[in-house]
Structures are given as C-alpha cells and as structure tokens.
C-alpha cells in the first residue's frame, strides 16, 4: 500500500512543513492551558481559534470544532488537488474513507448542556447531534467535502484510532471494496478529555516529558491528519505502508499491561506483515505519552523486542498527546523522518529513566533510513503498530499476515 500523500495540522501549525520545521528548530507547540473555561493547571497543544474557520456553507450541518480542524487540515499540502486526481482516476464510489476520532464534536454537546435552563431542560433547538457528537460526523464531513460515495466509517478505539484505520484501509482494498482510501483522524480539545484525564491523575502540570525519570503525565492536544493510500506500484521515493499490527491487552481499561504484552504482540505482527526483522527498523516513533505506566510498559516491550539498539523517541513533547489523532500524527512524522533523513529527538526530556533500557533519542540525528515504526496504544488495551518503508523491494500489498 502506498502512502501517496499526507498532511498534518496541529499546535505546531498547519501543514507538514510547520510540524517538521518546529521539530528541526526544537520548538514545542505546547502552552499553558487557556482553552475555553477550563481551569486546570496544565499545558495543552491548541490550534488557535482564529485558524478554525466556519465550514464550507453547504456543510454547515456538520459544524463543530472537530470538523473545522479537519477542514483546515484538508486545505494544506495540496491534499484537495490530490484527492480530486484520485477521484478522476478511481471514481468517487471507489475511494473509502476510514478515519479515527475519540471525542468527535462532543465539545458542542458540552456547550449545549450549559443552555438547558433556557430550554426547560432540553438542548437548544439548533443543536445537531449527528453532525457533532456522533463519532461518524468526521467521516461524513470528509466524504461530503470531496463528494465521495465509497465505503466509510469511523474507528473509535481511543488513542489507537487513527493508526488502526491503516489496517481497515488495507483490508478494504484487499477485499476489493475500494481501490484507494483516505485515512487519518482528528481530535479536538474539549472539557471531557481535560477534566477526564485530570480525574485519572494523568495530566501533567508541565509540558509533557516522555521517558523522563521525572515524567508526571500527559499534555492534551488537538490535531488532524489525513493520508491517501493506494495500491499502485511504488517508486524509490514513495513511502509504503508495509505492516499494520493490531492487538488487545485484555488486561485493564485504562492501564497498560506492565510488560507491554499487547504492545509486543502488535509490534511483532507489524514486523511479520512487513517481512522484516527488528534490526531492520531504523527508528521507532514511540507512543510515549509521558505517564509513568505507559512509558514503562512500552519501554519494556520495545526492550524485549529491539534490545538497546534501535533509536526511538516520542514526539509528544512537540505536539502533545493528540489522542485519537495521535496515530496519524505520528505515522506522518515517521514518514517525514524517512523522507528527510532525520531522527527527531525527544523534546522536554531531561533525565532519561534509568529503568527503561532502550536507545531513547534526546537529539535530532541525521540518519539514512529504510524502515521505521510508529506505535499507538489506547484505553481498553487497544494497540496498533505500523511499519513504513521507503526505497525497499518489499511490497506486502494485501494486508495479509505473513506466514
């Protein structure tokens, strides 16, 4: 499967160049939380409200912060032109839309609940459930934005959502239900996640410090990212999706298995699908949320599979934890790392956790890479690991697990 085109928007800015230049300049997108009326001592990755413009007039039934962020992202990196070209090539009914979100437009529902007193306990009459709170709203928006008529759904498996959609797309294409697919995801700031993660004691009062010995929680952030996946034969400059490993922890709703058993299974499966060995991977973009337990569990899993050799880092010090958009955000950063030949070093991490024996990168390092991996893990023990390749002879295009 070819990653023909991708685009990113997050607190670092709109478009791929904004994210990459911030990583090169080692600039964080995190700032002290002033989101709406949230009263929480933390840092967030927020896209400025002024950039989140109203939706195209014909899509106003889908109006919400989440879809505004989706719209802003779609307008970057010639993504619209690329999709128009894909429609001309395949037809609007042969392009699938498989997107991840964890909270969709729930922020609209939160605001509507404050208006109930004025409406005898009901929600305001202009509140539109299907276009906001319902998870499908995002896929409805992207389908309508391009006039697509192919299969579409949203995957909502918390923080693995927009990585797992790469698996859905590969199966749907292998099954012949579509010829190409738009994948990705969007999550936007809302009070549910800010107060919810705070209630679990998982929110840091500082910009998050992944894999630091003194890490104390996440920085919640918003982001959007989209990619076009096709089955075309790759050229040497094309990025290929070679493996999508998925697994379940079957352990606990909000804590990872301590040895990262499910994470290991996902990484092994991704490597098997790509038909490569752990030592072939040049860089792992870790999930690395900067909570005590997540980094310890993921670190244990990576150490078990890769030892202390393979360079790895979390880029959440730059972007924050973009939750349901973390998968696409970090797969795209891994793709940029491949294209630009640089391993991004972790930001904000000062003292490495001596308990985690992996080759964690603190500085940006030039590197000639062929295979990279991106990890995404979510609540409910939902794990996904994706292997990308560039300039390789490998082409597992059918989504089947390797024998």
């Amino acid at each position, binding site marked *: 499967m070819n990653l023909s085109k991708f685009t990113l928007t997050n607190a670092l800015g709109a478009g791929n160049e904004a994210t990459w230049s911030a990583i090169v300049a080692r600039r964080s997108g995190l700032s002290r939380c002033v989101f709406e009326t949230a009263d929480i001592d933390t840092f967030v990755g927020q896209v400025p409200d002024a950039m989140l413009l109203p939706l195209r007039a014909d899509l106003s039934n889908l109006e919400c912060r989440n879809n505004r962020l989706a719209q802003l992202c779609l307008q970057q990196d010639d993504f619209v032109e690329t999709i128009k070209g894909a429609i001309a090539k395949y037809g609007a009914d042969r392009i699938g839309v498989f997107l991840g979100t964890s909270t969709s437009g729930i922020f609209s529902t939160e605001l509507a609940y404050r208006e109930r007193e004025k409406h005898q306990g009901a929600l305001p009459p202009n509140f539109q459930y299907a276009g906001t709170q319902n998870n499908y709203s995002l896929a409805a928006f992207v389908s309508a934005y391009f006039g697509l008529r192919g299969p579409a759904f949203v995957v909502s498996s918390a923080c693995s959502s927009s990585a797992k959609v790469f698996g859905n797309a590969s199966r749907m294409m292998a099954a012949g239900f579509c010829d190409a697919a738009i994948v990705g995801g969007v999550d936007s700031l809302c009070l549910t996640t800010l107060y919810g993660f705070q*209630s679990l004691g998982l929110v840091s009062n500082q910009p998050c410090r992944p894999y630091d010995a003194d890490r104390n929680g996440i920085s919640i952030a918003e982001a959007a990212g989209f990619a076009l996946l096709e089955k075309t034969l790759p050229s040497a400059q094309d990025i290929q999706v070679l493996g999508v490993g998925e697994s379940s922890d079957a352990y606990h709703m909000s804590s990872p298995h301590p040895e990262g058993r499910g994470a290991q299974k996902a990484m092994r499966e991704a490597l098997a699908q790509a038909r490569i060995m752990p030592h072939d991977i040049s860089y792992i973009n870790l999930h690395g949320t900067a909570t005590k337990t997540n980094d310890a569990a993921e670190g244990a899993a990576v150490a078990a599979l890769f030892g202390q050799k393979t360079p790895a880092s979390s880029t959440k010090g730059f972007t924050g934890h973009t939750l349901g958009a973390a998968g696409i955000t970090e797969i795209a950063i891994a793709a940029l790392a491949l294209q630009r030949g640089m391993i991004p070093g972790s930001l904000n991490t000062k003292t490495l956790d001596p308990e985690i024996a992996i080759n964690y990168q603190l500085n940006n390092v030039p590197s000639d890479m062929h295979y990279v991996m991106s990890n995404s893990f979510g609540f409910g023990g939902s794990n996904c690991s994706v292997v990308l390749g560039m300039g390789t002879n490998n082409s597992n295009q059918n989504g089947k697990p390797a024998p």
Partner: protein
Amino acid sequence: MKTPLRVYVESIGVFGTGFESWTQAAAILRGEQLFAATDFPLPSPEWLPPAERRRTSDIIRLALCAGREALTAANQAITETYTVFSSSGGSGEVIHQICESLAAPEREVSPTRFHNSVHNAPAGYWGIATRNEWPSTSLCAHDASFAAGMLEATAQAVICAQPVLLLVHDLRYPEPLNGVRAVMGLFSVALLLRSTKTSEAKCSVEVSIATNESSETVVHNAALENFRTANPAARSLPLLAAIANRSNESVILENVNGSRLKLDVHSL
C-alpha cells in the same frame, strides 16, 4: 480480489427490547411468537472479575450478553476470534453524566465514567472477560453502523482468514439527548463469521456494495419494522429474519454516502 466476499454465519447471539436470546428471536422472526416491545433486565456479566463487573455501563452489559451467547452456541474457544464492535452511539448514559458534570460549577468527572466513555469500552471489557489478545476494532457509522460492522467483519474473516465475532449494539439515550437523537429501546446482535464452511454453519452470506437504486429490505411485521428503523443495531433484523426463516434471499441494507450493502443469504 473480486467482490462479493463470502462468509459463513456459524452462531448468533441476540438480546434487546423484546428479545431474550437468538432462539427466541428466531421464533419471533418466523412469526411463531409475538414481538412485545418490553425491556428485559440486562444480565450482569458474571464472567468479568468483580471489580470490572461493578464498573460496567449499560452498553457494555448489552454488548457482552449477545457476544457470550454467540460464543457459547458455537463452542468456539473465546480467546481465538478477532472482534469487530460497532455502535452508532455508545453509552448515552455515560456521555450524559459527563456533560452534566461539566455543566455544573464543580466539574467533577468520575474517573470510571471517563474511561467508560470511550467508544471501545465494550471491547476493552470484552478483552478482560475473555483474555482475548487478538485484534479488536470499534466502529461507528451513525445509522449504518451494522452495515459498517458487517463490511469490516467480512473483510477481516476473508483477508485475515480468522474467525471474527461481530458485535453491534445500541440503546436509548437519556433525556435531554433522547430529544436530539431518538433511539428506541435496546438491541444487541453478535454474529460469529468464518470464511470457511464448517458443520456448524447456518448459512453463507455474500457481501457486496450496491448502488442506491436497490431499495432497503424491510421486516414484514409493523412492530418489528418500526423497531428496525428506530434502533441502529436493529438494522440487522432483515438479515436475522432471512437466517431464521432459512430463506435464500438478497438482503439490502442502507449504507453511508447513499450506497447500499447487499447480503446474498444462502441457507445451509
């Protein structure tokens, strides 16, 4: 690979308004029993560890009871299936409680409610209950969530060559959400699908995407037809009716983006 893709339905679980089990649902769908739109109490998932059991929300209990019936009927080792969960709305109760807390001055969100608010909460509890470490996904396609689940589960069964348990469930929202999204009662269906035919197989289903020229299959009973359109998970009723009646027919489901899903059912 050319569409359609063929899967075999090996076992079924059903629970919801007027439905206590697949056996009883099949009798209703054959017209042997009357459909009465009354709610049965949701069974407590005794197979979950006590700490987890206490934390389950209504949608989790709803999903788990149909899933368990399907697995028990199939004699399938519970640790060996892929799972596809799909729901239009997840737990309205949990979302309602969180939004109410956030509208109050204290903004105290319960940690259990927050982790139960994720759309994949039923999948998480299912994993804990079954110790199943295989891939699991959780989908949403608004009113077409059963069609989306069927499409994904079929693709997984055929492409990954694994047994796949499809679990689709929806239940009514509390007020005021019910005022903006009317879902009737509760309904949960679980189908164990396989790409190969076993002696247990009830029918084969060939799955393909059709255009919106074909009209949606309805249920020939006014009360059931009303329920089909009023609960997204109950959009599975025409397929369940075809299986219960051992008929060979094309079931057309409404899908997203103006398309349809065509399920060619052949009884075995």
